[in-house]
């Protein structure tokens, strides 16, 4: 029934999904796991606080890919963090500038920021220019974001999402403003740039953990536990496979290729 060569992947996916669902049900029954600290996410409140003290705005970007893109989960992770950042900005009456490169993300981001201000009871403080759509051209976006950060003297730059070659332009441009920088991405090729140009950087799956970490929602925390269990299983398969290969048995390789 299942295509040859994809059987292992299929059953792994089924097992993984079943584990996630089981852990979610367990969490809803009150057995929520705890999660290790993520300094990058803890620093967001500090960054917004610093911006508040300095009377300067916070810049936020959820990356440069659209919601239909294969890297859209990174954009969604960024949007979850945007919701948190917008709430903090609303609570502390801090300025917020969200720059967006993709039109579909713009519509969603606008809704998120507006909602966050309403929920904090500060609906009247929301301004449409808190979310700005900048044309869908990669480097034009990068240049515009750097320009905005310099002109508006942002005190904090938070960028969580998928990035490409413009990542260094935006983060280094942000660093030159002297503000605190918190970045995150699962686009591995851009991580070195983000790491050297930021104060805090969330790497890989850490950005997917962001919404669970910030919301402390038990069901989302359960999914993080599932991710860690899956990671442990992956490591176990790799170690067993390597040891068996060293002893001349390719059983694990054949299983994976089945």
């Amino acid at each position, binding site marked *: 029934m299942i295509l040859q060569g994809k059987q292992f992947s299929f059953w792994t996916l089924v097992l*993984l999904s079943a584990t996630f669902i089981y852990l979610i049900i367990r969490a809803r029954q009150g057995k929520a796991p705890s999660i290790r600290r993520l300094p990058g996410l803890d620093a967001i409140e500090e960054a917004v606080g610093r911006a508040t003290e300095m009377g300067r705005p916070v810049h936020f970007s959820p990356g440069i890919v659209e919601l239909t893109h294969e890297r859209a989960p990174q954009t969604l992770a960024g949007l979850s963090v945007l919701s948190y950042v917008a709430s903090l900005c609303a609570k502390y009456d801090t300025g917020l500038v969200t720059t967006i490169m993709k039109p579909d993300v713009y519509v969603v981001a606008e809704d998120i920021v507006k909602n966050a201000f309403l929920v904090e009871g500060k609906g009247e403080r929301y301004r449409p220019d808190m979310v700005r759509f900048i044309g869908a051209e990669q480097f034009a976006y990068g240049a515009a974001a750097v320009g905005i950060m310099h002109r508006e003297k942002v005190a904090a730059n938070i960028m969580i999402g998928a990035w490409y070659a413009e990542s*260094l332009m935006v983060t280094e441009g942000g660093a030159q403003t002297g503000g605190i920088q918190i970045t995150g991405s699962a686009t591995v090729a851009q991580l070195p740039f983000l790491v050297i140009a930021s104060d805090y950087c969330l790497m890989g799956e850490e950005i997917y953990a962001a919404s669970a970490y910030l*919301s402390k929602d038990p069901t989302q925390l359960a999914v993080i536990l599932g991710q860690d269990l899956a990671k442990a299983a992956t490591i176990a398969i790799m170690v067993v496979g390597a040891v068996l290969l060293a002893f001349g048995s390719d059983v694990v390789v054949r299983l994976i290729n089945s």
Partner: protein
Amino acid sequence: MKSTVPVVITAVIGIVMILDFFLPVQSVNNMASLLQSWGIVISAFAMGLGAVNLLRRHTGIIAKGEKSMLYSLLLVGSMILTIIVGLFFGTGSKLYDFLFTNILSAASSTLYASIAFYILSAAYRAFVAKNLDGWILLLTGVVIMLGTAPIGAVISKFFPAASQWIQDIPNTAGMRAIMMGAALGVVSSAVKTFLGYDKSYLGQGE
């Protein structure tokens, strides 16, 4: 109801696409092909939505006579010009090619090239041997810099060999680890989205 319907649509479409990857069942494959065609059409519409959005925002700026009006005028003017040339002369025409090569391509390449300056200033700022991590970053950076440019091999064959080793062994190992972690993160995001625990794509935040 307002958020349940989109969640159900997302889950059903997602599951069909996953099954299409694994199962050689004609009805599933046909449905996936249909959904892929819809995806292509929706993506094309999203581009149109972007153009309308951009036009709306910048005509608003022009109408209000804001400070940045000049840039908005430039943007709207070049947008209309490109649309007219594309529609009436075709995207294969010499005029369209002229606009593309001499304006868009030139401007984009210039901005891309400006990354060289950012690399220089980032390297100058960040590559400081303050601790062991700093030393590792610094030495690796120098070896890769020299190993990936022809001058490295002229100075010593050590640089390209060491650079290749760093890229093939420690770097690839690290990248694989991050990729696997991120892949698991994507699966967990999909489960959360399909079950309706993550609705950030509907603009509802947390």
